[in-house]
C-alpha cells in the first residue's frame, strides 16, 4: 500500500561532490516498504513552480528511518540540499517492485551501480550483508570526487572512474567482465545511467547471464494515473489494438525489469 507522508528530516549531508544523503523519519512509508528497488516520490518544496514530484530510490530503511541518496541535478534537488534537520518533506511511497533472486543461494549476486543509480544498489548490498549473503559490487563514476566509498576489491567492492582518478579506469564493463570470470553462477543487478544499463543489458543477454535492471523514466504521478512513465517492451511491438503490451508503466510494473524485457530508446 502506498501512503503520502509528511516526513521529518533527520539529517541531510553532502557525502561526495554534489551527492547528498538525506535521512527522514517516515514511519508510515517504512512500514509499507518491501525491499531494495522500491522508490519514493518527493514533493518539491517551492510551491507550484515545479508541479511534479521527484522519484528517488530508497537507499535504506532502518526502523522508521528512510534514506535517499540524491545528486544535485536541477532546481528541485538544489532546493532539497538546503533542507535542515526538523524540516518537513512530503513523500509518496513506497512505489514499485523489488529486486528478486538475490537471496537465492544458487546464484552469486553481482551489483552494478553508477551515478544516481547508486541508491538501490547500496540498499541491495546492505540488505544482502544483513542476510549474510556475499556479493560483488561495482560502482562507476566520472571522477574520484563523486565516490564516497573505498576501492576495496578484497572485500568485494570495486570502484571505477571514467578519468581513472580512483579505482579502475574506464566504465564498469571491463571490471564486470573480470569479476564474473571467477563466479560460477553470476546474477546481475544494475542501476545507473542509460548507457550503462544498455551495456549491462546487451552483455547479460549475450552471455546468457540473468540480470535485473532498475530503470528510470519521467513520471508525473507515480500512482498509475498519468500513463506518462512508459518504457518500451521489445516483445510487444506488433499488436495493432493493444494496451500495455508495447509499453510498460515503470511506476506500476517497474522500476525493476529483467534485461530481456525492456529496450532503450
Amino acid at each position: 500500500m502506498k501512503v503520502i507522508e509528511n516526513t521529518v528530516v533527520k539529517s541531510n549531508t553532502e557525502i561526495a561532490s554534489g551527492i547528498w544523503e538525506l535521512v527522514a523519519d517516515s514511519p508510515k512509508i517504512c512500514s509499507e516498504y518491501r525491499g531494495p528497488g522500491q522508490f519514493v516520490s518527493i514533493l518539491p518544496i517551492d510551491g507550484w513552480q515545479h508541479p511534479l514530484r521527484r522519484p528517488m530510490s530508497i537507499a535504506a530503511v532502518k526502523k522508521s528511518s528512510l534514506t535517499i541518496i540524491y545528486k544535485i541535478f536541477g532546481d528541485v534537488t538544489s532546493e532539497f540540499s538546503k533542507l535542515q534537520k526538523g524540516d518537513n518533506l512530503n513523500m509518496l511511497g513506497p512505489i514499485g517492485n523489488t529486486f528478486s533472486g538475490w537471496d537465492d543461494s544458487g546464484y552469486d549476486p553481482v551489483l552494478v551501480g553508477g551515478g544516481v543509480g547508486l541508491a538501490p544498489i547500496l540498499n541491495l548490498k546492505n540488505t544482502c550483508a544483513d542476510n549474510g549473503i556475499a556479493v560483488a559490487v561495482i560502482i562507476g563514476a566520472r571522477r574520484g570526487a563523486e565516490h564516497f566509498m573505498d576501492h576495496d576489491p578484497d572485500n568485494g567492492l570495486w570502484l571505477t572512474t571514467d578519468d581513472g582518478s580512483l579505482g579502475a579506469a574506464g566504465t564498469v564493463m571491463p571490471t564486470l567482465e573480470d569479476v564474473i570470470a571467477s563466479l560460477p553462477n553470476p546474477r546481475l543487478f544494475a542501476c545507473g545511467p542509460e548507457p550503462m544499463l544498455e551495456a549491462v543489458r546487451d552483455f547479460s543477454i549475450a552471455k546468457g547471464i540473468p540480470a535485473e535492471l532498475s530503470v528510470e523514466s519521467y513520471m508525473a504521478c507515480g500512482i498509475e494515473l498519468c500513463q506518462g512513465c512508459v518504457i518500451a517492451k521489445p516483445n510487444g511491438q506488433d499488436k495493432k489494438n493493444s494496451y500495455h503490451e508495447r509499453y510498460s508503466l515503470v511506476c506500476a510494473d517497474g522500476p525493476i525489469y529483467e534485461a530481456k524485457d525492456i529496450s532503450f530508446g
Partner: protein
Amino acid sequence: MADITVTIGKHTFQNPVFAASGTFGYGLENPDLVDISAFGAIVTKSITRQPREGNPPPRIVETPSGMINSIGLSNIGVDKYVSDMAPKYADIGCPVIMNIAGSSEDEYCEIVEITESVNSNIIGYEVNISCPNVKHGGIEFGVNAELTESLTSKIRKRTGKLVIMKLSPNVTDIRSIAKAAEAGGADALSAINTVYGMSINPHTKKSEIYTTYGGLSGPAIKPVGLACVHKVSLAVDVPVIGIGGITSGKDAVEYILAGASAIQVGTANYRDPATGISILDDLKRYLAEQNIATVAEMIGMVETYES
C-alpha cells in the same frame, strides 16, 4: 452549512468538485490514497473504440508551473472498459462520467452505443473533441463549429445520459464552438482541455515530447481556463464545467465566480489524488466566511468593470 450541491442537466451532484479526465485513471487505481466517495463526480481517462497503447515516450515534461503531456489516449478500449471496469462502479459511492474520444463520428457513436447496451453506473459522457496530442483524436471536431454541432447531435440521439462536450482553448473563437455544442444538444460544456505547448532540451537539442507538441496543463494555464470559462458561460445557457490549473479552494472559487457550475481537478491529482477533498474543505470555509448560502448563487457572480 451552505448548500454545495450543483445541478447539471437532470443530475444533482453532492458537490461541484470533480476529478478531470486522464488525471484520475478509471477511478479505481488508488483506493487507499483517496476516498473517491467525497468527490462530486469523477471523469475517466478517455476511452476509445479500440484499446490504444498511446504515444512512444517521452510523454511528459515539466514546465514553469505546468507540465506538457502527450499520452496519446492510452486506454483499454470500450469493450474491456464496459466489461471489466464499469461493473466496479456499482459501489464506489461517486457518479462516474465516461470520457470518450474518437477519430470519426462513427467511432464516437459506436462507443456510446456499446456503453448504452449494458447496464452501468455511468451517468454520462464527456466528449473529448480537444485532445492536442493525437492527430485523429477528436481535435479536428473541436476546432470546427459545424463538426462539433453534428457530432454532438449524433451522440445526443444515442443517449439519455448527460452529454458534456469538452472544449479546446486552442481556437480563435471558443464561443462559436460552445454555441455549436449547445445547438447540438449538449447538456453541459467542459473547458478547458490542454493548451498546445513544446519543450526542448538544450543539451541534447531534442524535443522533450515524442510528438513535438503536447498539451500544457497545471497552474500556468489557470488564467487561460478562467478566461475561456467566463466567455463560454456568457455565450451559452447550459452549465459550464471549469478546468485548468485548479490546485486550491481559491482557484475553484475563481472558476465558479467566472461562471463554472462545477470544476475539475487535473494535474494537481498527480501530487496528491486527494487534492479535490482539500479543495472542497477550502470551498466550504470560503462559503461560511463570505456568508454565501449556496454554491449555485455564486456561479458567474464575478463583478467585471466593463460589460
